[in-house]
């Protein structure tokens, strides 16, 4: 018997099962979340579920992967549009904020929920953040003295936003992502271009759609 066909990541996010899984895990925690509850919320039968997924772990991993693919595609595209650093990083940060605001359950899962699944999914999540750190480290080419910048600068900068959001979300507090974007840019720019360029980031107005969010 051949294994069940794996759904394409992007199309999976359009199905009710994607929201059902994340909402259930958010409400009960991963350990207590059951496939029975997934299928009840998604309006599908257990037989339909079993024909497509090997179980709770697999459907969860596929949904995480689909969200990461989508985030990475959107943020990467935004970064590629602008030519210069930090303009491209700022554009990527704005798009990241839009992804976060549009996908609250996925963001919670990425920041908090995934940590309770297993080390492999955590590693996949961290791989995504390391990719984000590489966008920040694009500042090395724009820096007056690239060799003077520690290797850790980009991880410290991405960690500043990741850990801050994780702590807020873990405490059940919404993080005002848009309002904190200029502060994130300050943190990311400072090691590369210095204090003056970093402070300039604090004065740049957000795009209208994020100002009103």
């Amino acid at each position, binding site marked *: 018997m051949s294994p069940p066909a794996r759904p394409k990541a992007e199309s999976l996010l359009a199905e009710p099962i994607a929201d059902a899984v994340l909402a259930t895990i958010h409400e009960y925690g991963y350990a207590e979340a059951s496939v029975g509850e997934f299928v009840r919320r998604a309006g599908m039968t257990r037989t339909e579920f079993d024909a497509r997924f090997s179980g709770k772990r697999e459907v969860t991993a596929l949904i995480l992967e689909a969200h990461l693919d989508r985030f990475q595609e959107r943020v990467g595209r935004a970064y590629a549009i602008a030519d210069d650093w930090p303009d491209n990083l700022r554009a990527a940060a704005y798009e990241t904020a839009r992804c976060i605001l549009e996908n609250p359950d996925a963001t919670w899962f990425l920041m908090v929920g995934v940590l309770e699944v297993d*080390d492999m999914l955590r590693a996949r999540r*961290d791989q995504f953040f390391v990719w984000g750190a590489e966008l920040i480290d694009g500042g090395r080419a724009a820096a007056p003295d690239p060799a003077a910048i520690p290797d850790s600068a980009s991880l410290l900068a991405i960690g500043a936003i990741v850990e*801050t959001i994780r702590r807020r979300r873990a405490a059940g507090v919404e993080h005002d992502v848009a309002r904190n974007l200029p502060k994130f840019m*300050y943190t990311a720019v400072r090691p590369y271009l210095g204090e003056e360029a970093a402070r300039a980031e604090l004065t740049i107005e957000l795009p209208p759609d994020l100002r009103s969010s």
Partner: protein
Amino acid sequence: MGERAMTRAELASHQRDRVIAKVTPVFAKRGYLATTVDDLLATGKIGVGNFYSLFDGKEDCFLACFDRVSVEAQERIESATEGVTDWDRRAYLGLAAMLEYFCADPSAARIVMVEAQCAGSEATARYNAILDRAVAWLSDGRQGHPEAAELPPSFEQASVSGLAFYLQQCLLAARRPSAAELISETSGLLLEPIIGSDRLGRLTHR
């Protein structure tokens, strides 16, 4: 008069400490989620009844390991900064002591920095409380440095969060920077904005 016999409570405390020391590397190596009570019994060389007389279960045992590591880290920081009144020097020595401890005992570091995030709400709360204390401690530095008043209000929160994430990545990755590398990199990013590059330079070359 000779050695007195241990009381029942002292014996239990002694045995608890012994088990905690033995199982801390198990939680660190296998990860909290993958560690079973059977793993703890085998490594701690303890029977199931005895284990449950000392701990409420796996989570309680983990919390005891977490507390042991965080107390040890705090003691090392206090020892390194004892008698030092200058904030700049206290901050540098305290940061260095913590990073040296974590580099010398990666299992201990992993318990606090990595595994606590997936070991239940109480462990997460204790981990977050440590970060909150670090934020408050870093904020104290602004008092003696008027120029630091111009830093964004979120500077300390961002710096401590960034350091925590960076240490997690170091612990999870195969490559581990030396304590000297870690101290050099992180002191520049955490302390230099507050105390200035000249002052940090003098501290690092002392």
